[in-house]
């Protein structure tokens, strides 16, 4: 596997990233890399700094210090746009989906296909609808019609629209911020299946979650964030659910807590 090959270059690598918001130290030196075709899980409790970290990766925040390398070359993202242009696509926790708009209009938002020549250059609604239906079907969702509003989709389906959109527009790295946190069991397994599908197509996936079981289901490597710090990265097979759980909780309390709850956490 690529991710364990020491000679392969990660698509993106972030080294010793620190991010301060005034006096708040959200990240205190985090190192993470993503290889093609792997699913790198970023675990951590609420407030650990996961969202801040991926916002740095996707160009929303400039790091206070630390290095970003794309294909091994040091890079600085001026803004989210420039990260997108290098192939880093992000599906945010709030999805960037507009419920009142149709799936097609959401899918193409900001990148609408055009037809004709100026000043008669129009949004090619038919083509857009056709491709949307096709891409959604590929992800296992059969739309009623391309003009169906996103608001009528379930949470899992919306997540899948967002992922399908990122993949269609040529993402090399796909960052998913807690895609499963608000979903039921069935929808979660659909999203996890989608992640697996995306990974197998050679895209590097960064999967953020605070649910260790979800991470174990699809992850190749795992990095645990705790209060803005990381204890390093482990590969699949090197750690088990309990160890990850302990690392997320800061290394000690979890065992006690688990004891008192009878191992249900």
């Amino acid at each position, binding site marked *: 596997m690529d991710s364990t090959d020491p000679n392969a270059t990660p698509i993106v690598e972030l080294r010793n990233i620190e991010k301060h918001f005034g006096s708040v130290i959200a990240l205190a030196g985090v190192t993470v890399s993503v290889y093609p075709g792997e699913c790198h899980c970023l675990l951590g409790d609420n407030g650990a700094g996961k969202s801040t970290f991926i916002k740095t990766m996707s160009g929303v925040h400039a790091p206070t210090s630390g290095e970003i390398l794309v294909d091994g070359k040091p890079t600085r993202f001026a803004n*989210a*746009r420039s990260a*997108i242009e290098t192939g880093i696509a*992000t599906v*945010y926790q*709030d*999805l*960037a*989906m*507009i*419920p*009142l*708009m149709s799936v097609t*209009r959401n899918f*193409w*938002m*900001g*990148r*609408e296909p*055009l037809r004709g020549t100026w000043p008669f*250059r*129009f*949004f090619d*609604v038919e083509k857009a609808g056709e491709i949307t239906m*096709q891409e959604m*079907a*590929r992800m*296992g*969702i*059969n*739309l*009623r019609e391309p003009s169906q*509003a996103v*608001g*009528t989709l*379930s949470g*899992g*389906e919306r997540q899948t629209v967002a992922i399908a959109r990122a993949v269609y527009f040529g993402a090399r790295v796909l960052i998913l911020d807690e895609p499963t946190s608000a979903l*039921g069991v*069935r*929808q979660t397994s*659909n999203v996890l299946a989608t992640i697996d*599908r995306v990974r197998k197509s050679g895209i590097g996936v960064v999967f953020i979650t605070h649910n260790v079981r979800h991470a174990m289901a699809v992850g190749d490597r795992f990095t645990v964030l705790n209060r803005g710090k990381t204890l390093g990265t482990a590969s699949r097979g090197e750690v088990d659910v309990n160890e990850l759980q302990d690392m997320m909780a800061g290394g000690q309390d979890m065992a006690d807590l688990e004891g008192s709850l009878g191992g249900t956490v």
Partner: protein
Amino acid sequence: MSETATPDDERVREMSTFRRWLIRPELGSICGTILVFMFFISVASDSGMFSGRGVMNWTVVSAQFAIIAVGACLLMIAGEFDLSVGSMIGFSGVIIALMSVTWGYPMWIAIITAFVVALAIGWLNGYLVIKTGLPSFIVTLAFLYILRGLTIFLSISTTNKTIIGGVREKAEGDWLGNLFGGKIFKGLFTWMGENGWIETFERGNRAGQPVIEGIPMLIVWAIVLIVFAHVLLTRTRFGNWIYAAGGDAQAARYSGVPVNRVKILMFMFTAFCATVFATCQVMEFGSAAADRGLLKEFEAIISVVIGGALLTGGYGSVVGAALGALIFGVVQQGLFFANVESSLFRVFLGGILLLAVILNTYIRRLITGER
């Protein structure tokens, strides 16, 4: 992979044709239009409301509403309001009259100046909303007062009057003036009159000429703006950005939509529409007055809401807004034809506004599935 069956809990829900129609923004205004026409045909058909002249009367009034409603519609879908539309109408009109009549510039220069100034003010409205992050409601409310005050001040301080006449004489033969104050298809109407197909004057110095001598440019502007805005909204990339900016500005930004630019341009478009209205009105009346356009911003917003747009943005239709304007014009003039006390028009407006908002909220729930 593509033939993966959809799991049970995410199945494709069937939607009845009825529901599908229900979620079209124009539905309410289509029903409203039919009801309004049925009502007036039954109570006022012998009043001359549906004679050539009567039709022209309410068509012109509806076209006036439509011109400002189109601007307000796109702006509302983009998630903002402009309460300074009425003041803008007064302001632009006074600029045109001052420049042409008082200061003697050619009419076309006066009109172009009014448009440039209006677009600049529209830009400023938008810029302030974007930069301060204040609700557009507040920023444009400020401009409602600022522009109205400036309009009165300008006309009093230069002419000692609040009404500036003599515009029609100045506009005579001016190419740009004719684009707003003229009539088209005059030949066609004369010809139709000669053939006895349309009503002609029977006596007086205009005997033999058609009662309706042509289509006023005001109506042409209304139609052009409606078509332009409808195509822009539904058939262009920019139209998708308008929906997106109003639906969820943050989500739109994440997807690379230049939300600020879209919103500022929509404020400018609203100011443009207000100035089209003002110019047509100044040409028609032959004068500008500092109190023109009072309450127009609300009439525009009501037309748009009757047309099915959501006050919260992201959803609406230009065709709906145009029908809202038609309902508005037909009822206002219809009550006059039917000899109903005109103050009842306000009662009607308030009532229909409430009804429209309630209906829209319900439809929004249908679309988004919220409870």
